[in-house]
């Protein structure tokens, strides 16, 4: 017997980063007694180590809650806690496709931020009802009335009946539960006896169970033992295990219309599943599949190389395992003259890159050299062909190139008026074109058209530092556009270092070249001889620095008693140097490959 639709509410919790989504999810889970009191822990849905360490959500999580409402009926609530960081915006948008409503959480001390806007627009696109929740009212700086007004002004949704809560202390949580039941709609339609039509919302790899698939049932009933077919990929599987998250896995016999749950089958890797695909019964398929989602595509690329060349196979192994679980990240083998064998990997953004790199280093214990992040350039050759360039090192001979196009983004930045000047300057310096400038109370909202390659690297850090953390930022990919781009090479001791090559705008090349040479001079430790460091474009040197030779490196006292110890120290030092990469006679420390590109401006 499936639950009547009227007793089901499915919703996502969305907000700007750190506004308290996961903490609110904790309270909902706790107040409904879904998890025993003694098993509660803060942000309990953020189960990954990296999530717990960074205090952020990376992966959307689903929980089913039973809520006995004031009207005397017990409702099934399926909540999806989503990540707030812009890199994972895709997780939010696809989560929204599986539900009918959203809790929009806004920090009552901070108000509307860039991802608040982005999330509201996605929610409206998905035809969601929205319940506004003003959080953190326990803080003295909270100004719920002013923020409610701001929400009405800026977003244009009614905030007069917003729930005022503190997810931390638990104040206001019962109101949220009632609002969910009263104000969010039940699933729109669904016939338990119709042919099965279910949406593949997400999938991930579990070391014990294999691939776990999260589904939302639209029509029909999914039962354990059913034979199903994925309509897009054509894959056929038997349902081995069927259940719901509370938030631990709990087996169920069947899932009916409007319900959200998971199943496992003999699916080998996450790549065999396509998020947004339609799942149906093999025997009695439905007629028309669901519209599906646009897949997420990697926009930032970099090379990952093992510090110890002998660990290449281990690296391959770890990357393949991580990819099992993260279809949004791409990889292919790469060889670099300087760094040896490694992988060129694609990510959704810089945080995504960092997360994957961290996991490889920590979970698989492989030290990595990460090369400068790059974007995909389109190269229009004189012979009419078009190439996609993922790696500046592969840039063809300029004489054969007609022109280059680079990806641009549309960036939305919210910033207090005081810092507006700095933000405009930053965007201008990064070759931005201003599209819009409006005000949200005393904050400015600027919209810029920016080249992705200027943003990918350290834009977010710079933005944070020039605005002392008061700005928020969101972006969407826009179009490709032609510009005067060139490949800049770095030569260390007269040897080109391919891993330090970057694509730059011609007008910015001299400045960047100078900055990179100066940075490298600080990053490369002095060696026994002096080392010229140069930036060049097509063989022409545009900037130069000289790292002077090491002057003093000698142990003052060394006698019979500590010979062994001193020798061990030297060997340790030498082993440390093995972690550097040798370029001709020069050793370059691994962190140089990333740090050299950070602009201090």
């Amino acid at each position, binding site marked *: 017997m499936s639950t009547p639709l009227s007793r089901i509410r499915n919703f996502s919790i969305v907000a700007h980063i750190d506004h308290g989504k996961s903490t609110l999810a904790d309270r909902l889970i706790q107040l409904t007694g879904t998890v025993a009191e003694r098993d509660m822990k803060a942000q309990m849905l953020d189960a990954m180590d990296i999530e717990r360490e960074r205090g952020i959500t990376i992966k959307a999580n689903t929980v089913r809650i039973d809520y006995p409402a004031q009207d005397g009926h017990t409702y099934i609530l399926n909540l999806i806690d989503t990540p707030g960081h812009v890199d994972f915006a895709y997780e939010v948008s696809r989560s929204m496709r599986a539900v009918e409503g959203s809790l929009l959480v806004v920090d009552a001390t901070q108000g509307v931020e860039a991802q608040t806007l982005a999330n509201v627009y996605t929610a409206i696109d998905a035809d969601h009802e929205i319940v506004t929740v003003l959080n953190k009212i326990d803080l003295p700086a909270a100004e719920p009335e002013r923020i409610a007004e701001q929400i009405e002004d800026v977003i244009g949704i009614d905030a007069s009946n917003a729930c005022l809560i503190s997810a931390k202390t638990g104040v206001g949580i019962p109101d949220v539960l009632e609002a969910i039941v009263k104000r969010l709609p039940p699933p729109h339609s669904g016939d338990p006896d119709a042919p099965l039509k279910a949406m593949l919302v997400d999938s991930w790899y579990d070391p014990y169970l294999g691939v776990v698939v999260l589904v939302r049932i639209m029509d029909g009933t999914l039962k354990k033992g059913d034979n199903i077919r994925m309509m897009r990929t054509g894959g056929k599987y038997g349902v081995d295990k069927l259940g719901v998250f509370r938030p631990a896995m709990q087996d169920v016999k069947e899932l009916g219309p409007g319900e959200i749950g998971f199943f496992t089958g003999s699916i080998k890797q996450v790549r065999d599943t396509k998020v947004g695909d339609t799942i149906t019964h093999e025997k009695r398929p439905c007629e028309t599949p669901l519209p599906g989602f646009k897949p997420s595509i990697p926009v930032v690329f970099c090379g990952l190389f093992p510090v110890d060349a002998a660990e290449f196979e281990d690296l391959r192994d770890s990357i393949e395992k991580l990819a099992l679980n993260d279809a949004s990240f791409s990889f292919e083998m790469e060889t670099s003259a300087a760094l040896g064998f490694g992988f060129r990997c694609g990510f959704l953004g810089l945080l995504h890159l960092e997360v994957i790199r961290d996991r490889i280093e920590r979970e698989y214990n492989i030290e990595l050299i990460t090369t400068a992040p790059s974007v995909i350039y389109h190269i229009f050759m004189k012979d009419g062909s078009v190439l996609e360039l993922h790696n500046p090192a592969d840039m063809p001979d300029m004489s054969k190139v007609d022109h280059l196009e680079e990806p641009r983004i549309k960036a939305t930045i919210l910033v207090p008026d005081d810092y507006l000047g700095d933000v405009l300057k930053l965007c201008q310096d990064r070759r931005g074109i201003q599209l819009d400038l409006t005000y949200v109370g005393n904050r400015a909202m600027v919209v810029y058209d920016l080249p992705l390659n200027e943003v990918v690297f350290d834009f977010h850090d710079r933005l944070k530092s020039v605005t002392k953390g008061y700005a928020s930022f969101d972006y969407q990919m826009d179009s490709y556009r032609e510009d005067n781009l060139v490949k800049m090479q770095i030569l260390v001791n007269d040897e080109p270092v391919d891993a330090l090559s970057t694509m730059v705008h011609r007008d910015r090349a001299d400045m960047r070249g100078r900055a990179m040479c100066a940075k490298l001079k600080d990053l490369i430790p002095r060696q026994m001889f002096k080392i010229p460091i140069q930036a060049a474009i097509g063989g022409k040197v545009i900037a130069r620095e000289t790292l002077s030779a090491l002057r003093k*490196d000698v142990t*003052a006292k060394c006698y*019979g008693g500590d010979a062994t110890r001193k020798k061990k120290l030297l060997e340790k030092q030498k082993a440390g140097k093995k972690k550097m990469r040798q370029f001709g006679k020069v050793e370059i420390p691994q962190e140089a490959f990333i740090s050299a590109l950070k602009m201090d401006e």
Partner: protein
Amino acid sequence: MRFENLWPGVLTQNNLENWQIGGFGLYVHWPFCEAKCPYCDFNSHVVSHVDQGRWARALADEIRRAGAETSDRVLGSIFFGGGTPSLMTPETVSTVIEAARDCWTFANDIEITLEANPRSVEVQRFEGYARAGVNRVSLGVQALHASDLKRLGRLHDVDEAKTALAVARSVFERVSFDLIYARQNQTLDDWRSELGEALDMAVDHLSLYQLTVEEGTAFWDRARAGGLRGLPGEDLAADMYEVTQDLCSTAGYTAYEVSNHARPGAQSRHNLIYWRYGDWLGIGPGAHGRLGTATQRVATVAWRQPGLWLQHAEAGSGLESRAFLDVSDQAGEYLMMGLRLDEGLDIERLHRLDSTVAGPEAVAELVDLDLVLWDGPVLRTTAKGRLVLNSVVAALLP
């Protein structure tokens, strides 16, 4: 020498000659001090009471045990190091020297050095040390500035040090003293004048060490916590080192080792054993020894903690470990030690141990950079090379 080079093949293979040409000496460690200096990472401990009789017996027993295996050698030197060996009573020193005399033939010119702290209490014992057989002292003067001595945590003042030096000169044949430079807020000129003063006081040997902030010391903790400011940077430290070489050589002292300067013939023969990579026995807590047997080279390490050492020594052996060194370790140590000397090392001897150490290409690169000289069988550093010796050695290790 008992082993003549009659079977070059055999000897080349076992390298016995190599160890023996480096000499044979005895190091005795006295692990106690009056106070722990904040920069010091030596095996030194402050205790309320030391049973000198017990320690003397234990040290003598250890010497006899080591002596039983090496009775055919001629002992060229004894070195009492610490800690503060000038806290030993003359009787203890005498017991140790006599135990050694029972074991080995002493070379005619045997050098017996004792490290002394320049305080008046200790000076009173100088005569007694001389009677026991000590013929050389090395005084830990460290600085000629009152406030710097305080900062270094020293218990003596400048005048006491000067008096100690005067007494030492009258009592011992040979006298050396130590200074620590590149101290906090020291300028190049400060050091120049301090060193000038030291050279005026010196007899024929000086050890001049740049302050090193060693892990596990109070200075290390202070530096980590952001304190200990005003230490010289790389360039100033290099300048100070160069000034040291200039002033000493003008005054007639050769820098025969990185931090050691001597008039002709006045080098520390004992310390040369280490740097020439000869044979030495290490007796007392934490002491290390190196000894060539007919086929192998043995490395010994004594228990480090004084109480533990005493227990073990009294129970039959103070050694925590005794192991054969493989040839590549020997080559590495010889390289690291030998290049500290201005005379350099014997590259053929090095290559007999391990031909991958200091390979011709690596050496040639350093020759090109004017960091080492390769002159027939001799490999040595240039003045410039010695200043970056750690990098030079690292570049020559396989």
